[in-house]
């Protein structure tokens, strides 16, 4: 009952004038960012961060949370209507959503995506409220070996789910962890990898790595790729939404539930986020669902969209309970907390429960708000597609630099961000995943501090990481997560070799 009353307090805070204004701005900007193919959701949240420096912590959190929630929906509209995925998470919607448009069922496709976003978002928000505090109270009993193992598990999952070569993922992670070691170490005060350069002695802020790699790196990649493919579909399409009937929705309840569970679970795993959820849910639906996907089946829309939106609630759980971001966007929200002197984690539930409930309530309100906006404002939202990509990219670069400069008013941060921009481009080009680099930079100091504390407290006995139950299980899961894809690949090669020895050629 107390928890409900506290959540009620969170809702009251969200509807306070300044917070409500931040919510509306966040929803509109989040939708626009998601609609524009040149801007990703994470980039959008990164670019909004400098505007929160001078805000109070409450409107800052509401703004970024609203952008995050809205960003998981906007791209669905352009995917379905014009075959332009605003976000990578919306790619599965091309296969069924755009097919429905081609069959003249665009309004219904939009209706299904809206219902899926609302269902996935609200259920995951409820799960988030129910799970976060119990997990935080468990985390309160964690000691440094457990925190180290949880971070290792998160980092391993980022590599496993990164979608690129595992070795490249691990190298990217190592680079991120190394970047985090630059500067003066927190235990002995020793200078590491600064090479006498004053700006490196202060360390490299993870925000600069994020803004450079995701923002500038993405812009450079798009310059190399040239103009995006022209939109397919009639721009004069009437921007109407038709909702499915209750009976139709009930018939698809298994798809709704599957997508939501996948979204929440993948969202909880650090580093995975909405894109991975969307693809995994679509794949599961293809395997276990009744409908044949890829030919305009609403099940394809529902599976991908419920999972993408449900990942939001999931991603907030590790952030609020343990201070470990579950996705790129929650990493920025972590930065917003830190910029206001608040370290998310189990202690926040005792020191600032109002902020936790504010975030909970903001997720609920933003989920409903994005659906209302997605229903009434499709036409003006799609207008932004007329903006030339080169112009949008130019503004993105300027926003990135201002964001990097404004945090510390330090000109040398501009060099760092440009360097990581070029590195981000090279990573994309050479097929090194970016997420492990960024998450490694964010979680590196947490991992190192807990590793060093453990080694000092337990007289350099590294076996404690394996002998303590929670720590041992988390490390075992991390190792299994890394070994499993490798084992799967070796097994596939072995089978292939056996087949070729027997002279059998598999059909394409």
């Amino acid at each position, binding site marked *: 009952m107390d928890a409900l009353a506290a959540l009620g307090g969170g809702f009251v805070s969200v509807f306070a004038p300044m917070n409500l204004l931040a919510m509306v701005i966040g929803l509109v900007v989040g939708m626009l960012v998601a609609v524009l193919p040149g801007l990703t959701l994470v980039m959008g949240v990164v670019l909004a961060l400098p505007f929160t420096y001078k805000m109070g912590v409450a409107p800052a959190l509401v703004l970024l949370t609203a952008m995050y929630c809205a960003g998981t929906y906007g791209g669905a509209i352009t995917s379905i209507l014009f075959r332009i995925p605003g976000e990578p998470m919306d790619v599965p919607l091309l296969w069924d959503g755009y097919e429905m448009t081609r069959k003249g069922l665009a309004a219904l496709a939009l209706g299904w995506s809206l219902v899926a976003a609302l269902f996935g978002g609200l259920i995951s928000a409820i799960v988030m409220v129910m799970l976060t505090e119990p997990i935080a109270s468990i985390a309160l009993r964690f000691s440094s070996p457990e925190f180290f193992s949880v971070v290792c598990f998160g980092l391993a999952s980022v590599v496993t789910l990164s979608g690129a070569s595992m070795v490249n993922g691990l190298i990217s992670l190592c680079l991120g962890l190394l970047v985090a070691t630059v500067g003066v*170490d927190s235990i002995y005060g020793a200078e590491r990898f600064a090479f006498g350069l004053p700006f490196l002695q202060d360390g490299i802020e993870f925000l600069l790595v994020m803004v450079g790699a995701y923002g500038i790196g993405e812009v450079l990649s798009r310059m190399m790729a040239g103009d995006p493919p022209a939109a397919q579909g009639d721009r004069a399409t009437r921007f109407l939404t038709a909702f499915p009937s209750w009976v139709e929705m009930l018939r698809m309840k298994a798809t709704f539930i599957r997508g939501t569970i996948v979204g929440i679970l993948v969202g909880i795993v650090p580093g995975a986020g909405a894109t991975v959820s969307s693809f995994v849910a679509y794949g599961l639906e293809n395997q276990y669902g009744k409908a044949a996907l890829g030919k305009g089946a609403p099940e394809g829309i529902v599976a991908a969209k419920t999972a993408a939106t449900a990942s939001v609630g999931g991603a907030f759980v590790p952030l609020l309970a343990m201070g470990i971001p579950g996705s790129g966007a929650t990493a920025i929200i972590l930065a917003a907390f830190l910029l206001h002197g608040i370290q998310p984690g189990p202690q926040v539930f005792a020191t600032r429960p109002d902020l936790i409930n504010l975030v909970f309530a903001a997720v609920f309100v933003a989920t409903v708000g994005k659906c209302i906006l997605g229903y009434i404002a499709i036409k003006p939202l799609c207008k932004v597609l007329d903006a030339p990509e080169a112009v949008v990219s130019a503004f993105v670069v300027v926003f990135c630099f201002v964001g990097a400069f*404004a945090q510390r008013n330090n000109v040398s941060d501009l060099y760092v961000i440009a360097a990581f921009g070029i590195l981000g481009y090279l990573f994309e080009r*050479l097929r090194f995943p970016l997420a492990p680099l960024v998450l490694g930079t964010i979680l590196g100091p947490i991992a190192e501090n807990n590793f060093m504390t453990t080694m000092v407290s337990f007289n350099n006995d590294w076996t404690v990481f394996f002998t303590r139950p929670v720590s041992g299980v988390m490390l075992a899961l991390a190792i299994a997560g890394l070994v499993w894809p490798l084992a799967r690949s070796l097994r596939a090669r072995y089978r292939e070799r056996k087949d070729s020895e027997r002279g059998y050629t598999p059909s394409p």
Partner: protein
Amino acid sequence: VRQALPHAVLLAGAVALYVAASRIDVDTGGRIGPAVWPKTILVIMAILCAYEIVKRLLGGASERAKGLVEGLETPGEEGRAEHPRRLAGGVALVIAYVFGVQALGFFVATVLFLTLFPLVGGWRRPVLAASMAFAGSFALIVVFMRVAYISLPLGMGPFRELSIALIRLLGVT
């Protein structure tokens, strides 16, 4: 050999950084020192790079050992023509902007950047680009300095005077 080049560069970097980490000299009183963590990471990274180099030299680049989620690329991206000149121009402009913003101040550097970047990116409407750049830079100054209270680089010499005159015009003290 070309396919193994990125990993060879990373391996060389890891070795160089390992040498640098070995020079971190702190009295730890028998406890684990500040160099252990980065050294461990560097050893892991070097092993991974060496493994990938050998693999690529023996069997060519292979994307076989992927993560759990494969093929997350947007369809249609792979067939698009590449524009290395645009990229080179973009990189040059980004670097020029970093230095330009310190010398010319935010407003002038941003007007120039916002005019040139779309042109380099293939948008062939210079007059519109310049107009948008001017209006956009002015709007950004208003938003950042008046709304978000973010101080921006003023530049040097006459450009500093210009920036100060502009922010006075906006009523920022």
